């Protein structure tokens, strides 16, 4: 257990450093973003100094890390607002979206995996094709059909200015489905292999010979073997959804962390990017740890 904690901490630290370096290597920085590229070199340098962007990289990340330990997430380089406020305002919305997407994704994943394991020749390619449709088109298609033609759900999912997203839960449906469907299709494709392998095990085949019905075989023999694999696949799917949440949030105008991350990366707003990256990285690390513990206890 302590080894697991140490390892998780190491992974998280690596994530923070990697993201910091990546953001620093991107061509835009906050000073350029704020001046819109139409400021002279001297002014740009002065602004950089004011924002602390002229310090060497390791100083900057050390400063950020010490701040983090103290509980201070820093302030946005672009707007000066505290990062904690920015994140705090958007975190509940993102959690709500992720929860809704998970609610949709998990049953789809299980059904898809079962189908892919039982009939790999037909179900698995269909899953792959679904996963291959660009996310943009999935979102657009959902809007066109369910919001445009059928008018069952709203076409954009604004979080009410006063109140939370739960005041209008129907606005969560389309973004959640747009997130869940490609991720579930992909995850089911991954898990399908494990299901097929489980079904080919001698004692599972023997159970079929003994006459056990399919659902019973599924529950008693296949599902328990799949727990480590499904936990890992769930982690992958969750990571994938975090990644594509940026796109979905932009398309639906949803005020979540994904949209914030995209904007922050574009403007080179390091503290915001770091905070979001560490947060989502922590979620993934926890899921991985849980999956490893489950695998080890078998």
């Amino acid at each position, binding site marked *: 257990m302590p080894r697991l904690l140490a390892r998780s901490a190491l992974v998280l630290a690596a994530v923070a450093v990697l*993201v910091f370096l990546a953001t620093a290597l991107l061509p835009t920085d906050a000073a350029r973003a704020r001046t819109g590229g139409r400021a002279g070199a001297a002014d740009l340098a002065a602004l950089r100094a004011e924002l602390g962007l002229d310090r060497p990289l390791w100083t900057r990340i050390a400063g950020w890390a010490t701040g983090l330990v103290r509980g201070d997430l820093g302030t946005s380089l672009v707007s000066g607002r505290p990062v904690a406020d920015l994140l705090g305002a958007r975190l509940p919305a993102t959690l709500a979206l992720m929860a809704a997407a998970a609610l949709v994704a998990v049953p789809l994943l299980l059904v898809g995996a079962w189908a892919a394991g039982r009939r*790999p020749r037909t179900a698995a390619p269909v899953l792959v*094709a679904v996963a291959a449709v660009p*996310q943009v088109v999935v979102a657009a298609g959902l809007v066109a059909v369910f919001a445009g033609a059928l008018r069952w759900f709203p076409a954009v999912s604004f979080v009410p200015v006063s109140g939370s997203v739960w005041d209008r839960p129907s606005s969560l449906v389309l973004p959640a489905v747009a997130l869940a469907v490609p991720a579930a299709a992909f995850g089911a494709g991954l898990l399908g292999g*494990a299901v097929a392998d489980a079904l080919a095990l001698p004692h599972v085949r023997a159970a079929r010979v003994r006459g056990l019905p399919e659902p019973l075989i599924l529950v008693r023999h296949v599902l328990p*073997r799949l727990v480590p694999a499904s936990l890992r696949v769930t982690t992958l799917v969750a990571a994938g959804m975090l*990644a594509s949440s940026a796109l979905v949030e932009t398309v639906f105008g949803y005020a979540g962390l994904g949209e914030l991350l995209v904007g922050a990366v574009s403007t080179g707003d390091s503290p915001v990017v770091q905070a979001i990256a560490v947060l989502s990285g922590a979620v993934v*690390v926890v899921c991985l740890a849980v999956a490893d513990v489950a695998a080890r206890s078998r």
Partner: protein
Amino acid sequence: MRLVFLAVLAVACAGGLLAPHDPAAVVGPAWAPPGAAVPLGTDALGRDVLSRVLAGGLALTLVAALATACACAVGLGWGLVAGWTGRAGTVVADVLLAVPFLVLALLFAVTLPGWAAVVVGTICGGAPLTMRVVRDLTGQARTTGYVEAALGIGESTVAVLGREVLPSIARYAVADAALRFVVALQLASALALLGFGPQPPAPDWGLMLRENLPGAALNPAGLLAPAVALAVLSLAVAIAGHGAVASPRPPRPAAGDSARAPDPGLTVTGLSVVDSAGRSLLSDFSLRVAPGEVVALVGPSGAGKTTAVRAALDALDDGAVRVAGTVRWQGEPVRPGRAARRWRRARVGFLDQDPAGTLDPRHTVARTLGADGMAVLAELGVDPSVYGPRLPHTLSGGQARRVALARALAGAPAVLVLDEPTSGLDPDAVDRVVRAIAADPDRVTVLISHDRAAVARIADRVLTIGADAAPRTAARTRSRSVHDEVLVVDGLRVRRAATVVLDGVDFRVAAGEMVAVVGESGAGKSTLLRALVGLVRPEAGEIRLGGRALPPAVRDRDRADLRAVQFLAQDPAAALNPAHTVRTALARPLRRLPRHAARAQVPGLLARVGLPPDIADRRPRGLSGGQRQRVALARALAADPAVLLADEPTAALDHATAADVLDLLDDLRDTGLAVVVATHDPAVAVRADRIVRIAAGALTDDRSEPTCVP
């Protein structure tokens, strides 16, 4: 299906040749809806969407294919290494997974050219997935019999990974590649959407998505066409991936004849079975068993006994299909499919030929059997209180067989079908089994066995399948001169899961000698053999081969040592790599010869063990148990060993074949081969020069008459 895939691929790559207009030419107003000249309408600049879709796949397909290949290669290599060495190496994978992908993707996109960004991004996103699963599969494969066998003949790690492990996980890898392809395509279109991909005015599906998004309401086809193209391409790749490794579709099963006959008991009429390639495995098989009757099926191995009973139960696998015949129970026909399944569950108790695999490895014996089963187990001579909490892999072969039999007997089935119930059991256990089988007077029992004595005791009728050569009763006597000792064991102590199984074992085998090791199930016979071959590390003691001390672990032994001591495992199915043909399996130990020379030896090796040469192209799935055992023996012999350690070599063989094998061993002994056999079979013990017994951890010479092994 393959044609469809190739057609799609051709259109994706060369579709530009089919385009009605120049993809870069303006043919109308922007975002015109579909019309006569422009079947899919126009795009943002007024160019023909159809032409652009046809021409837009080449670059994307090539880049995605390259990215997929790289990601799979990296993931496979990484997973193989991680799974084999057992070292994690997954920290990097976890980090890659935990970093927000947007950041990584942008970083690659701005620092590398478009296609390289897709490749690197797919590797980062796809390889860890492949790595994890390959690692698990490799870890499992590492402990299988065929990998152990390969290690036992001195293969290097790289060779084992490449030749044994890789083919057995190939099925997964190819099917999985399709998913990496999807990752690559999604990444490529996402980068094109962000502006990092191919430059306009190049037609490219990802670029088209970006260009046509704003006007999607005016001409939806501009957005849908590239999306559909992407989906179709992925679909084709996925179908190809799965289709390439799946078995061809089996022929449809025949409906049956539904005329009623009011006979009680089990009536099987005219069963015919073909395999997935259409070859006949069984032809017009009929059987009638009245209630209370026990019918035994005997015959040479490979004749189809197991196939026949499985066909009757509608429990065929591996692509074999019943194409004719009916099964009736108590006069009512049992239709294949759901009805048969229900009938099996309600009425049938079945013991598989290879019972250890049929027990769920994660359930203890007690959980598998339940209370009824435990009671039966006690009757079969296995102490429930000791073995109840055990897991199947800790049981000996005989114990596992009895557990599976107890499961079949529990619940008092009306139909009992047993495939080799007494194989590998000591005489006391055989008695108990016989008693248990005969216990229920109304039961219909069908029995497959090579054990003539047991058959004689239980069966009311014997049905012979396949030509059966006359049993040889006379053991060949040979004069034996004592040769030098080739294998010497001193003071061996071996533990198995914290209990000491062998202690202070002294043992000698001379060249040309055959020593039979007897003892009760679980006494340690297999353990002794495995310790000698190096698969189990002894706690103390020394093993010497030809005067030289042998390192106790197989990986410390050099090639010559490894070849000199060959092991024939008790479980023939697990000893052969399911992905290799017989020819490949036999040619492996002959690696020192050039390839065609090695393969030329294969028919000779097969003939030595009494197998027809056409077996060489089959895979283990297509062989009967006896045939598998003989192939494993042939493989062991191919290495030209000095000592052969065999664990129940004749267990799955019929009498005639067993005699043939023993004759073969005799011939080999004349050339100096020393043979140590662990066995319950008195026919084997009779042929041995010496018998030693293992009991309570000690090995003693057994001077009693070979025919009355107690």
